[in-house]
Every structure is written in C-alpha cells, then in structure tokens.
C-alpha cells in the first residue's frame, strides 16, 4: 500500500464509503465483497485535473457517463471536467447541469469553470457564483486569456474568492494558424507551425501577473523546456504557481506527425526530444506538480478531416498511469504523488481524494499491478472515441480494481456498470 | 533477347541456362542473306519498302537485313525501331516497361513495312506492333520477318520470312544473337 504517508503492507476494510480499518492482516470473517490485491499496489484513487467530458454539446465524442467509465478503468476516482463544452461552463446553471450528470457517474466528477464569459476572453465570468457551487479551478482551456489586463483582474478577483486560475498558455497572435510544433518536422511536412515561444510567452506573462497580484496560477499542460524552466524559477522565487504535464508530452515527439495521422494532433503540440526530456526532468524534480491527461475525445469523423482541419486532442484517461510507470524512470511513490495526492491538492479535493489510506477517510482507492504488461488497443477503449495515439504500444502497469466512494466500480479490469 | 530480358525484369527473375546450340553464327548469317533475297523477290525491289525492328531483339536483326539489302541492291532502306510496351494486351499481368524509345522518322502511309523480330512465339508482340504501326500512318502492306519461329501461336499470325522453324516446349527459352541461336531454360532465382 502506497500513499503520501509512505509504503506498507496492509489490508483495507471499507464500509459505507469510508475506510474503517487498515491492518497488516484483517479478520477474514469480514462480511461482503473481497477484492484480491495480491502482487498489486493499493493507492489513493488517481485525480485528473484535466478531462474533457464533452457534455453538454459533443455527446457523440464523449459523455459524462462514458468519460467517467474510462476514468474508472484508468484508476481515477475524481476528474475535473474542463469548461470548453457547448455551451461553455461559464455560469452556475451549466455547473449545476454537469454536476447533476456527475452524480450518476462512476467517479467523482468535479467541474472547472470558465474565466471569461463564453471563454471569449473579453468579459469576466461569474466566478463567485460558480465558486459557491464548489468550483475550485477556473480556466478558458482550449485557449489562453489573451488580454493581460483582463487576466490581471481575473487573478485579483479569484484571489479574493480563494479559487485558482489555470491557464492554457498560448499566445494566439504568435500561434495563429499553426497545427503542430514549429520546427524541423513542420517545415518538412509543410504544416504551419506553432512556435514553442507562443506557450513560453504566456507562461512568463502569467508568472509576472502572479507576482503582481499575489494570486495563485496553475499552468496547464506544460510542453516546452523553457516553460518548465520559467516555472522552476518562479517556484524558486516563492511564487504561488503550480503546473501539470500531459502523458503525451513526456512520451511523444513531433516526428510522430510524419504520416499525417491526425491522432497525433494535439494542443499544445508534440514537441522535440529536448522538450520531452525537460518535461520528464520537471516531473522528477518537482517543478511540475501533476500529471494531467488532457483527455480530449474526438469522434472518428472529426479526426478523419485533413490534418489542418482536424480538431486537436487525444485520449488519456485509460493510459496515463501505465505511461507514467513505463516511461518515467521514477519510483512508484513519486508517480502516485504526481497522479493522485498532488493533483488532489491543486483541485481543492484534499481530504476527499488523494488519500491517505487510513480509517475515517473516504474510500477512494486504486489497485494496480505495477508489473503487468499489456498492449493498448484503440478499439477497446471505454471512451466513446478512438483517438488514442498509443494504439499498439506495449505498456507496463495495469489497473485491477477501482473503488470510488466505497463502491467497487472496476473489478479485475472490468467496469462494473 | 527481348523475351529473355523481360523475364529478367522483377518480379519474375531467373537465369538463362543454355541446353542446345541450334544455329551457329554462320547459320544466322546465311539466314539473313536468304531472307534479304526473299524480301527483294517478294516486293520486286526496294522502293516504298521500310524495315522496322521490334525492341529490343528485332533491332540488330533489322540493321543486319538493311546492310544485306544495301550490299545486294546498292540502296539504303529506311530502318526504324518500335517498342510495343504501351500496346501490349498483357499489361498488368507481367512487368512491361518500354525498353527504349520508338523511332520511326518517316511516314508509313503508302509504304510496305517489314516488321523484324528475333523470335516469333505467341504472336502477341506482333499484334501489339500492328496496333502501334497504325498510329504512324496507313501502311500499304505489313510483312513479318523473324529469325526463329518457335510455334505456340495464340493469334492468327504467321511470318512471311523465317530463318528457322524450331519446335520447342512452351517453357523453353530461345536466345538469338550474332553468335547464333541457343535453346535453353529459364531457371528461377527464387520460388
């Protein structure tokens, strides 16, 4: 068993959604369902800071139901749904709608609100009204807030509410028209590029605005070496910044696009090997606090468009843990910190998710075999969409059981509803 | 040689293994002389006559015939070359590539054309050549001269002038060159 307090060998007993006992050897006469965890790690459920559930508006790509099933199979017990739905989650009414859908889901569905009305970047959304419903993270994800003055005001206002603004860092004036990382491969393939600097400029700007306002900023899906450096320096300077990185940004590089396979189109785009190494380093040294999937389902039809017309985004929930265990040369404890308790804290879910696995705490658990080998099959995803770039990849580490609020939602790798 | 070269083009591949020398260099030389006389006799002279060698095996033979005709009659007969790759009816069934460029620098209308090839086999190359010739004008007549007629015709085509009638098996290979005519087998280099 591994949680933030350490590693030990123990059995866990759960009743009414709460952990009631943790001991080296529990009484075998206990009534009820028993899950075998031999050879496995028992950990607090994983927490995804960055999930696109697509509902409302894009139900053909994903629904709260299908997305939460994918999450449960990936070992998650909580996901934060991004607000770039149609309509955007920019008011109490839409927040209520998604939370209502989430009550029936297999995992705890939380909501991020938009910073600006309609994510249009011009007018501040009713952050307070949404915060009253428990929304802790706000972002215009899919786009960054371009106007520095507006972002400054949003940070000041959010600081007063005790909520956190999360930024999709992309300077649109520099990135406009781009569809992949600008560099050797974009030049060769004739695809307009997005320079790394489009991201770095906004990371640098928002570090400055965090300093100016004293408000916390969370950086979504960092993808470049310089971005990681800027965040590292900001943290060293004592600023209240946190950051996440997506699995594809520590596993894939821009040459993956060479056959114009739109499954490799994502924003921020896949970068260079140097950037991948820097993201890995950032995850290892604590600069990056969390691995967040940026799970972005798109229908087959949408992805079958020409590369420059296809929407960016890739699936992530069902492969994140295995990619982290396979590709990051980090101890399991540290991988779990990046996937569970650190993101739980950023999402304001500490105490409910991310452990510890101790009596009196919510029974949100992930049981996985860290050595199990398996091959990703894009056609056998729980997600409604198929756009995984990891199809056919051999990975190590597989979720066996997921327990959410005391309910075994995944048993032996099979979703229970 | 055309036949042999075509078989050497991937994906067929193979090595020609000689089995019997059926005509010596002298036999070939004498056959050329005889055919030249037959052409003169049949056409009562050389006016309006042109020779067209089929790429690639018929081209050297057409040239030797021209020299022979010039030696006998003292006049040069126009000689052209024809590649029938684009006219074949077995396109897609086996590799067909133009061996060389077709070169017919004269109008065929009103002329008598003697098509020249090294080996006459199924007749399909000649059928393709007849189609191709039509694109260069309306010849008054077309005659066919070959060094070896090996049988196995698949079309109603027969030669006007033959160096040697050579009974063969269908899977055998005939190689014609200045050194003579050799009968052999194509041994595949891979299954």
């Amino acid at each position, binding site marked *: 068993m591994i949680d933030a307090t350490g590693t030990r060998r123990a059995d866990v007993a759960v009743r009414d959604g709460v952990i009631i006992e943790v001991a080296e050897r529990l009484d075998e006469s206990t009534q009820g369902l028993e899950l075998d965890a031999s050879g496995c790690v028992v950990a607090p459920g994983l927490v995804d800071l960055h999930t696109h559930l697509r509902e409302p508006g894009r139900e053909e790509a994903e629904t709260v139901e299908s997305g939460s099933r994918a999450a449960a199979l990936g070992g998650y017990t909580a996901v934060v749904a991004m607000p770039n739905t149609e309509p955007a989650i920019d008011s109490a009414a839409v927040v209520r709608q998604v939370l209502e859908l989430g009550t029936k889901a297999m995992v705890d569905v939380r909501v991020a609100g938009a910073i600006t009305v309609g994510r249009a970047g011009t007018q501040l959304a009713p952050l307070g009204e949404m915060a009253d419903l428990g929304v802790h993270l706000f972002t215009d994800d899919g786009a960054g807030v371009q106007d520095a003055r507006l972002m400054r005001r949003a940070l000041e206002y959010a600081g007063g509410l005790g909520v956190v603004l999360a930024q999709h860092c992309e300077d649109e004036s520099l990135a406009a028209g781009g569809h992949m990382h*600008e*560099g*050797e491969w*974009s*030049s*060769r*393939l*004739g*695809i*307009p*590029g997005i*320079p790394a600097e489009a991201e770095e400029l906004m990371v640098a700007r928002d570090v400055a605005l965090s300093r100016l306002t004293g408000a916390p900023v969370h950086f979504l899906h960092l993808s470049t070496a310089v971005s990681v450096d800027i965040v590292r320096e900001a943290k060293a300077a004592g600023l209240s910044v946190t950051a996440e990185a997506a699995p594809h940004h520590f596993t894939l590089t821009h040459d993956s696009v060479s*056959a*114009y396979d739109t499954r490799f189109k994502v924003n921020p785009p896949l970068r260079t090997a140097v950037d991948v190494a820097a993201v890995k380093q950032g995850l290892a040294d604590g600069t990056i606090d969390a691995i967040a999937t940026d799970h972005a389902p798109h229908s087959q*039809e949408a992805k*079958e*468009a*020409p*590369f*420059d*017309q296809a929407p960016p985004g890739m699936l992530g929930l069902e492969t994140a843990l295995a990619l982290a265990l396979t590709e990051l040369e980090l101890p399991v404890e540290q991988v779990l910190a990046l996937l569970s308790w650190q993101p739980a804290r950023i999402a304001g879910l500490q105490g409910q998710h991310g452990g510890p696995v101790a009596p009196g705490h919510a029974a949100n658990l992930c049981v996985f075999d860290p050595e199990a080998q398996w091959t990703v099959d894009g056609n056998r995803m729980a997600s409604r969409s198929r756009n995984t770039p990891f199809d056919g990849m051999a990975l190590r580490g597989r979720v066996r059981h997921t327990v959410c609020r005391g309910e075994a939602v995944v048993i032996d790798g099979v979703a229970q509803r | 040689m055309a036949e042999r070269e075509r078989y050497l*083009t*991937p*994906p067929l591949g193979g090595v020609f293994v000689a089995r019997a020398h059926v005509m010596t260099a002298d036999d070939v030389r004498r056959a050329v002389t005889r055919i030249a006389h037959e052409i003169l006799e049949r056409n009562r002279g050389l006016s309006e006559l042109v020779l067209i060698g089929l790429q690639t095996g018929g081209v050297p033979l057409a040239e030797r015939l021209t020299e022979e005709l010039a030696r006998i009659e003292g006049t040069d007969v126009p000689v052209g070359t024809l*590649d029938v*790759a*684009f*006219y*074949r009816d077995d*396109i*897609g*069934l*086996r*590799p*067909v*590539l*133009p061996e*060389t*460029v*077709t*070169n017919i620098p004269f109008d065929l209308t009103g002329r008598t054309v003697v098509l020249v090839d090294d080996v006459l086999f199924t007749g399909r190359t000649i059928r393709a050549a007849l*189609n*191709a010739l039509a*694109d*260069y004008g309306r010849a008054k007549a077309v005659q066919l001269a070959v060094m070896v007629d090996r049988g196995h015709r698949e079309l109603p085509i027969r030669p006007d002038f033959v160096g040697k009638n050579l009974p063969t098996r269908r899977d055998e290979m005939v190689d014609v060159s200045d050194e003579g005519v050799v009968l052999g087998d194509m041994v595949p280099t891979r299954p």
Partner: protein
Amino acid sequence: MKHLLSMADLGVDGIEEILRVTESFVEVTARDIPRVPALRGKTIVSLFYEESTRTRLSFESAAKRLSADVMTFSVATSSVQKGESLKDTVETIQAMGMDAVVVRHASAGVPWQVSQWVDASVVNAGDGWHEHPTQALLDAYTIRERLGSLEGRRIAIVGDVKHSRVARSNVLGFHALGAEVTLVAPPTLLPPSLEGWPCEVTTDLDALLPKLDVIYVLRMQRERMTEAVLPSMREYTSRYGLTARRAANLPDGALVMHPGPMNRGVEIAAEVADAPGTVITRQVANGVAVRMAVLFLLLGSGASIA
C-alpha cells in the same frame, strides 16, 4: 510502388525509372495521334479540391493519351459543397470503381489520408505547402533534356519557399539527381527550419547569378502581403525578382524555369519570361509525358519503381 505521394519515397532509382519511361512518352506526345492503348479499361479519377486548371488538364490529357477513362470530380459543383466529408467523398468514388485517383488539396497530407482509405493508387498532385512530385519530375526531365544531366549542376530556387510545395519536391528531386541546390528568399519566406534539407540558403541572389546553371523562379502570391512577410511587392521585385538586368548576369545557356502561372513583372520580368533561355513552355509540354509515365508505371507496368 502503389502510390506517388512524395519525392522522398522514390529514391534515385525510382526517379531515374520514371524519367526513362517519360522519354518514351515524349515520343508518343510528339506524334500526330498522341495516344496509346496502354491503360485501356482503367479508370482514373481527378479529385481536385483546389482549383488548378493546368495541373488538372495535364493529368487528364495524360490519362486520355493512355486510353484510360477519366472521371473528373469537380468540387465546386459537388456534394462537398453540401458538407460531405473528405472520407465519404473518396469512398463514394471508390465504390464507383477506380484504379487511380489524382488528388490536389489545399491541406498538406491529404493524399496520405486518402491512400489509407482506398485500394486504388493515389497520385499526389499537390498537397498544401508540402509536395508536388510530378512537378519536380517534369522539372528534372526538362533540365536533363536541355543540359544532359543534373549531376553537379548549380540550381537556385528563388522566392516563396516556405509556402511552396514545388520547392519542397524540387529540393529533394534535384538533390537526388546530383545537383547543388541553393534556396534564395527573404527569411520570412523560408521554412522555420531547414534541418535535414539537402541544400544551401542565401539572401544574396546577385552574388549567385553568374554561377548558376538553372534559376528556378517560384510564384509570388499576393496574399502574402497581408501576413506581414514582405513590406511590398515592389521591394520583393527589387531584391529577388528576375529582372532583365539580373537575367543578363546569368551565364550563357543557363535555364530559366517557373512552375506557372507567372506574375509577370513581380517574380519574373516579361522580357525574361519570353527570352530564349526560358524553358517554361517546355516544362508544360513535358508535364503531360511525365504524368503519362507515372500513371503507366503505377497502373500499367506491373513493375516496381521504388
């Protein structure tokens, strides 16, 4: 080879093979009746999502001269206007029966995607900024026809390289055949990275002119002005245009090439376009023969060219 998507797929041998077969078709196109029955019974579809009258006509006449049936899919009057997806369109045409599809699209990579969806051979007739392999082949053929060989020849490609599929294909093709290629353009019209490109680059056209065997002038598109890549067309012409004064500095016998259509007075002066060293109309004529060779090799020969 099943498809012709990129010059990079061909290799030197593949390019040589196509150029050799092209020679036979140049002879065919010179005849009174420039038609052979080689592809009788084959159906070739021209699928042009981006209007290009010259390239489409060149492909279609190549197909017709090979006696193939030609279906022209006109995007402007088709179901595409009613929102049909690329894949649905391609699958519909495939269902009608086709042996090859010639694809032109404004987006890079579309021929690759189409090749995943159909059994037919796919010919890239230009995809976005990416490649235009038959243009590169006809250019190489034209140079060879005039200069004998590309080996060691110095070729400058001048102009909007960044947005040019012609430049990308020609750099690969010319280099494969042994030429020394130099790109000449303002930095705003060069790709962001030239890593892996087998060529040199300079901004000084005048210094290069006296050493050139071939100057290949790219079309300058006026819409570039709106993207702040150039202050004005006049400034472009003054630094990079092939004016009569610059053309006079070319060595005797140097070739002037252009993929067309030309903006006379912008990238090339009218008197240069019409001068004897210019082989632009020869490029167009050879284009049909090259495309005949490509279609014949893909559909007719049963041989492999790569």
